[in-house]
């Protein structure tokens, strides 16, 4: 496939991500300005970080005047899951993915982009990822700017309903393979049960850390109980 075709395919696959980000980052923009940041600073954070939970935690650190070490540690804890995702994606890259492309595309490894990329059956090309990253970053940054700039203009019922967009997309990624493979279904259910337990019984556990704990436990169990045969 040509670069243009790849890029366009990535753009199209990224539309739900961009739309979801637009609504989620809108909330982040409102929150950042409330915490005392300027519109420009809030937007700059979204442009350079591209991560929801990490940014929210980072704004808290800034607002409370925390140290830079605390900032680094908070980001490391919440975002370490991206290292797992990057490792997982590194296994399905096309040959055209040379080092500079890897360094550039790695910037855009988010939960959602990872989810869509991981569900592709063909090897990932740089321009496919760039298309998806471009539209996602666009939605994320624009939403932040709008939220920071004009936060309370959207009717509450609309902004509330937009909150489910990304989760709906997650379900659309995990349900079809769960239907086809019993092993995936087991891992998905086990991870969800653990997550519910963490959420209600260990509320002090940070969201990012809870996700790592649940996902790693469920995946280790899956790898032990249902080892996969070599794929072609």
């Amino acid at each position: 496939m040509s670069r243009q075709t790849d890029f366009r395919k990535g753009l199209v696959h990224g539309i739900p991500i961009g739309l979801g980000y637009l609504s989620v980052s809108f909330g982040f923009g409102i929150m950042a300005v409330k915490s005392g940041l300027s519109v420009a600073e809030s937007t700059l954070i979204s442009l350079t970080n591209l991560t929801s939970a990490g940014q929210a935690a980072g704004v808290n650190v800034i607002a409370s005047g925390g140290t830079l070490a605390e900032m680094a540690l908070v980001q490391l804890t919440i975002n370490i899951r991206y290292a797992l995702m990057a490792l997982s994606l590194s296994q399905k890259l096309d040959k055209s993915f040379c080092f500079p492309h890897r360094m550039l595309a790695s910037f855009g490894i988010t939960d959602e982009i990872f989810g869509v990329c991981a569900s592709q059956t063909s090897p990932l090309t740089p321009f496919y990822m760039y298309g998806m990253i471009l539209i996602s970053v666009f939605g994320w940054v624009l939403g932040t700017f709008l939220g920071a700039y004009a936060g309370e203009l959207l009717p509450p019922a609309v902004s509330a309903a937009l909150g489910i967009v990304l989760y709906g997309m997650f379900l659309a990624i995990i349900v079809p393979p769960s239907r086809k493979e019993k092993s995936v279904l087991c891992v998905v259910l086990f991870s969800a049960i653990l997550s519910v337990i963490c959420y209600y019984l260990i509320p002090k556990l940070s969201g990012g850390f809870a996700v790592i704990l649940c996902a790693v436990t469920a995946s280790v169990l899956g790898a032990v109980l249902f080892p996969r045969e070599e794929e072609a």
Partner: protein
Amino acid sequence: MRVSVYILVMAGVTYLIRALPFGCFRKKITSKFLRSFLYYIPYAVLSAMTIPAIFYSTDNLLTAVAGTVIALILSFFELPLIVVALSASLGAFLTGLFL
């Protein structure tokens, strides 16, 4: 401390977490356990992120449940991601009108 310094640290740490494994890991993993683990990880991550958070995503449990049910049904029939995502949101919005 200047906000720009915070942002620099934030962005730098977050980028390195992504770039180091993605850029520097070149070998194909041969261990069957690790391959299986990495195959399951995305689904497990998305599952843990979605449940139970989806039920609190719309400020109202009922509208969220309505959206979730719609998303589950549509994704069971393998509709495109964007259709599932926006239908869930529309379903939650419409349910909210009747509450």
